[in-house]
Each structure stands twice: as structure tokens, then as C-alpha cells.
């Protein structure tokens, strides 16, 4: 009985310590999130505050120059990017399910609100070549 009481007291002590830890860690988490927000905001606005558009260049082999582009937004923001393609194909933004045809040497612009949370890919549909990874945080 006595040792049981000790155990329960020890258990409660552990809970108390952990709750304090939670609070501390959670605060940290929030400030992390805010930092991310700030970063993404600066990323998506140009020098004079106008929205900047990322350009993804696709070479003549149908590969994205510099690798798969990474774009990160928060939900509700406007996603903007431009694809300049060296090949004719359909650029397909998965998840959002937006497809736009592009001709070799031409370009297409995407401009849509980030309404779905998650990580999505955009690819050259016929070549099955991924050119963009779009991350939308809540």
C-alpha cells in the first residue's frame, strides 16, 4: 500500500514535469512556425512588395533545370509560378488537378489559391517527369 502510494506520487510528479516541458516545447514550436511564416512571406514577395513569381525552366530533354523546384506556402496564400518549357507537354499540378498545355519554347503561368494542405507534385504529364514539389502548410 505504502509503496503504491509512493509510485502514484512519483507518477504525478512525472506528469507535472512533463506538462511543464510541454508548455515550454510548445511555445518553441509556435515561434518556429512564425519563423517559417516570415520566411515564406519574404520568399513570395519581391523587393518592392509585389508578388514574385518563381520560374521553373525545363530543358530540351524535359528535365527541370536545377532539379525539382520546391515551393512552400501557407494555406490561403496565392500560389504563383511560371514554367518555361523546352518541350511540348502538359504541366499537371496534382492534388489541385490543374493541367495546362505548354509548347516547346513557350511558357505557362499558374496562379491559384493554396486551399489544400499537404505536399503535392507538378509534373510533365506525358513524360511523368516531376518538376515541382509544392508544400502547403496549415
Amino acid at each position: 500500500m505504502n509503496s503504491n502510494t509512493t509510485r502514484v506520487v512519483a507518477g504525478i510528479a512525472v506528469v507535472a514535469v512533463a506538462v511543464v516541458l510541454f508548455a515550454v516545447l510548445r511555445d518553441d514550436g509556435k515561434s518556429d512556425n512564425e519563423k517559417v511564416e516570415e520566411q515564406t512571406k519574404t520568399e513570395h514577395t519581391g523587393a518592392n512588395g509585389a508578388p514574385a513569381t518563381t520560374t521553373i525552366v525545363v530543358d530540351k530533354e524535359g528535365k527541370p533545370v536545377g532539379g525539382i523546384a520546391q515551393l512552400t506556402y501557407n494555406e490561403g496564400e496565392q500560389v504563383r509560378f511560371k514554367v518555361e518549357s523546352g518541350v511540348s507537354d502538359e504541366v499537371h499540378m496534382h492534388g489541385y488537378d490543374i493541367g495546362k498545355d505548354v509548347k516547346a519554347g513557350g511558357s505557362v503561368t499558374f496562379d491559384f489559391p493554396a486551399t489544400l494542405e499537404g505536399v503535392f507534385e507538378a509534373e510533365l504529364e506525358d513524360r511523368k517527369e516531376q518538376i515541382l514539389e509544392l508544400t502547403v502548410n496549415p
Partner: protein
Amino acid sequence: MSFFLPLAHALVARKDLPVPAWLFAWGASLVLIVSFFALSAGWRKPRFEDEKWRPLDERFSRALLGYPVQVLCGLIGIFLLGFSIYAGLHGTEAPDRNFALTFIFVTAWLGFPFFSVIFGDIFRPFNPWRAVGRAVGGAFGLVAGQGSAHLRYPERLGRWPAAIGLLSVVWLEVIYGTSGGVAVGLSPHACAVAALVYSAYTLVMMGLFGVEKWCETGEIFSVYFGMFSQLGGFGVRDGRLGRRLPLAASTHWATVPGSAAVVIASIASTSFDGAQEGALKDAIIQTFEWLSETGLSLTASLRLADTIFMAICFVGVGLVYLIGVRGMSTVRGAPPVKELRRGFAHTLIPIAFAYLVAHYFSLFVFQEQAQFGYLLSDPLGTATTDLFGTANNGIDFKVLSANAIWYVQVGALVIGHVVGLTLAHDRAITYWGNYRQAARSQYWMLAVMVAFTCFGLYLLSVANA
């Protein structure tokens, strides 16, 4: 030159966001608290060794287990397998547009575990190979006037064929589908061919060793789904359906050799799938580059690199468990190591299930919308049929918010951890009649479970990073 590993599952148009740091901390702390409580507030008599099986109403039981329903379920199983193979062979090669891949790898492969943990072994009546095997066996009996003779199954092999089979299925799903050094996912055609090969292999094995024997030991899907069904609250005993204490049936599951390997293979393969795009990504790419520099083709290099890391996952998960078993064997009054190894294997089933939920829950919810939407109306993906008027339905990604997915993921791991500890504590009390020794042995299992759960949380927090 750099390489990219895009989505391994060509099915999903969407990946989960990594669990944020604060939730990771919450989850891990919760696990530790729960564990401390488990140590201090344990019960002293085993509670799960007896299933407390109680029969359900006899008419209900007879109707559900009677021949007409068995035949019907068997036919449904055979039809769905046959149709998947047909769709794989003759339908579109776009993985997400073909009935075959979603049905086999999402609806069945994930659906049966998800529902078996509640209802018990629901795959058994629908098992297409078992249905064919029984029909052939029955026909043989009628013609020959005697039962068919079988080879004696080497008992030492136990469930090892299923454990290796389980790794092979996941290998096929996440590793095989590569093209020129890029993971493109399994093609519907390859999936259909694999299903045909597996069907032939299974029917031969059933012919050799008997239908029920092979289902218990070697048939991958029976053993794998059957493992999760041990947690479920319904079971058949002496031809009668009954309710049982949830979790309790699992305490007698691992008596067959190789059972520990099955549950370890399950944890390891889910870990690998979760880690390949996150925690293990860089290591895999490095190994891949190194292998391709030795002159191997890009496809072979990527497959080999993935295979090596999947094997490492299996060995790693196995080692953690074996260290726990070793540790327990040092506690006074411990049964032999061999007995311990078998005796605690079932305590990992809840962990394996938690891993499944954490990694595939969102995929299941999203992809089932495709299954019962456009894949039902246009199963071949040829845009020529619209059987139920749902061919143009899409997937609504808004049904689950990122936050909801995170809570389910972390919640599943924490609950799996608690259930695993519960079963381990219960088994320890059975082995060590003395409560003190039992509790001492459980420091080891506690360490094993904390390791698995925190590793699971870690995988989620670095997913796709």
C-alpha cells in the same frame, strides 16, 4: 549529377506534411508518461490469457457461417481478384487510373488490417485462393471418394514463408517499380502478372500441404491479415461465431515458429516505406550513386540500394526485439530465450498496426474516394465506361486537414504503445508468477516499445523532409 526520388507511390497525388516539432515533443513525452504509469500501476493476475469467448445467437451464426454465405463470399473474392488481374492486364498503364493497383494495395492491403482489428478474421471467407482450393479439394473428394493426401508441412518452417512473402509484397509495391533510376511506382501490368504468379504458387502450395495448413503458415495475406485479426473482438470456435475479449486471441497467435518474423517484417516494411523519402533518403541516394558508379544499370542500382535498406530495416527492428528478449532472460526465473522470443512476439502486433495507421491512414481515406468514385465507374481508366455515373468524381483532399492527420498519426502510435505494453505486462505476469520479477523483466520490453514508438514518431516528423 544529382538524382531525384519522386513519389514512390504513383497512386498518391498528395503526401502528408511532416509532423511539427511541438507535436513530436507532445507525443514522445506522452509515451514516456504512459510508460511510467504502466510500470507503477500494473495488475497482478493475467487478464488476457483467456479469450472469454461467448457464442453469438445461433441462427445468426449459422446464417453467417453457412455454406451459401461461404460460397458467395468465396465467389466475391475470386471475382475481385480476377477482375483486378484483368484490369491490370487490359486497362490503362496510369497507376492511379487503374482499378488493379488501388484495389490490391489500398482497399485490400490496408482495408483488411484496418477492419480486422475490430471484427476479427474477415479475410478468411473472402480469400480467393482458399475458396478455389476448397472447391478443388471438395470436387476431388467427390470424384475419388476420399480426401486428398498432403505432404507433411515442415513445422520448423512455421510462418517464415509468410514473413518472407510479406517483405516481397512490399518490395514489389515500393521498390520494384523503377525506370532509369527513378522510382515510378508499380505498373498495373506488372501488378497483374505478379498476382497471377502468386496465385499459381499459392494453389500449388495448397495442393501440396493442404488449404488450411498453407493459409495458417505460408499464404501471405491470410497470415498477415490474420495476425491483425487476433486483436479483434469476434472469432469462430467449433464452427460457431462468438464474441471474445479484444486483444486476447493474440496471446496464442505466436505459438507457430516464424510468427515473430512476420510481425517484425510488418514493422520493418512500413518503416522502410516511411523512411525512404525522409530519414533514409540521403543514405539511399548515396548508395544508389555508389552502386551506379560501379557499372550497374540505373534501374538495378536503385532497386539494389532500396533492397539493402529494406533489409537493414528488417534486421534493425529484429535486433531491437531480440535485445529486449535477451534482457528479459537475465531476470531471475525467466523461461528459456526461445520461449521468450515466441512469447512476446504478439505484443508487437499493436505497434505494427499503429505504424500502418500512422503511415497509411490518409492514403486510405483519400484513395478510397477514388476506389468508390472514378475507379468503380471507369475501372480500366480508358474513359470509355461510366458504370455508376461516378467516372468524373475526383478526390476531395479537404475531408482531412493536416492537423487531423497529425493527431491521428501521433494518437495511433501512442495507443499502439499502450496496448503493446498492456499485452507485454500481461505475458510477463504469466511467465513470472512473482509480480516483482515480472515488473523487472518489463523494463526491457518498455525500452523496446519506447524505441519503436519514438522511432515511429521520428519517421513521421522527418517524412518527405
